């Protein structure tokens, strides 16, 4: 099915597309985020879904309160060590094709509150993050650009073959270990299966 034939057919009013494209097109344009604001970034997320910046142009303005009906978790704000088990438990309870957007410097790496004793230095210690939106808080336009980036990511997902996304592979886990609140810190401090710290050598 080369391009010339396809354009010829489309001129006759016949649309020929792959099932994969249709499947991804449908999912990409109806991402339902989980109504789950943590801090200041949540206000910018709400402002992005309001009339002026209008997240509903991308089909993502339905903020579902319960994780069972959401397929996109926007971690908007500082994840504290007291809140981390809840965030991971909510992620576990979401149905399978689910994505995580780490919105704001706090969710990405602890942000301005990095030296806090009760602040988790980034949600990618416990959850696989798909899109990072830097900023403190990122402006609503940045939130929309982050969402469009996620839509491109979904667009490129394969249905078959080794390049399949995580949720289509049998062996890949769909939920992750929930940390427990220990005596001095979260136990375990990070999820080794998910978190890939950057390898450095301290040169003397």
């Amino acid at each position: 099915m080369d391009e010339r034939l396809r354009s010829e057919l489309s001129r006759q009013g016949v649309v020929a597309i792959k099932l994969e494209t249709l499947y991804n097109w449908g999912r990409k344009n109806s991402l339902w985020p989980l109504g789950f604001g943590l801090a200041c970034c949540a206000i910018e997320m709400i402002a992005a879904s309001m009339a002026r910046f209008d997240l509903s142009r991308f089909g993502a303005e339905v903020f579902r309160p319960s994780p069972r009906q959401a397929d996109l978790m926007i971690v908007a704000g500082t994840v504290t060590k007291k809140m981390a088990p809840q965030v991971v438990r909510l992620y576990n309870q979401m149905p399978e094709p689910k994505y995580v957007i780490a919105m704001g410097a706090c969710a990405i790496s602890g942000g301005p509150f990095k030296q806090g004793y009760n602040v988790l230095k980034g949600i990618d210690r416990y959850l696989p993050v798909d899109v990072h939106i830097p900023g403190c808080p990122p402006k609503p336009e940045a939130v929309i650009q982050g969402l469009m980036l996620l839509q491109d990511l979904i667009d490129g997902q394969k249905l078959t073959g080794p390049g399949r996304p995580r949720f289509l592979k049998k062996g890949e886990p769909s939920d992750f270990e929930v940390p427990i609140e220990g005596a001095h810190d979260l136990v375990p401090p990070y999820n080794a299966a998910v978190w890939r710290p950057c390898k450095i050598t301290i040169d003397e």
Partner: protein
Amino acid sequence: MTGSIGHTLQFLTVFLVIAVSFSLIPILLARIWAKAFSPAKPSSRKNAIYECGLESKGDAWIQYQSQYYVYAILFLVFDVESIFLIPFGVAFLELPPGAVVAMLVFVLLLFEGLVWAWMKGVLNWK
């Protein structure tokens, strides 16, 4: 004669088959799709009870108050009543006055039950 009746019955069965298959095919497709493409991965963490992000403590099988049961019964009674009223409403014009009186008795009987429950104070929450 029977052929024409047999004929209309066949006509009905075709419609029945189409209706049933129209509802079953998407479910079948979804099942095939799940088996072929996205494997199911049930796990205890995923099926945990959702309680605002917290771990749910205690089990849900506790003895409930009888008050809830009374509300449920009253709702059920009036739900069933509305089922009877629907065909009555559809065939209202062709019905003789006797049927209207019968339905009136039926409705008033239930209404009297509600008034009694209200007077007895079952409805307001103690």
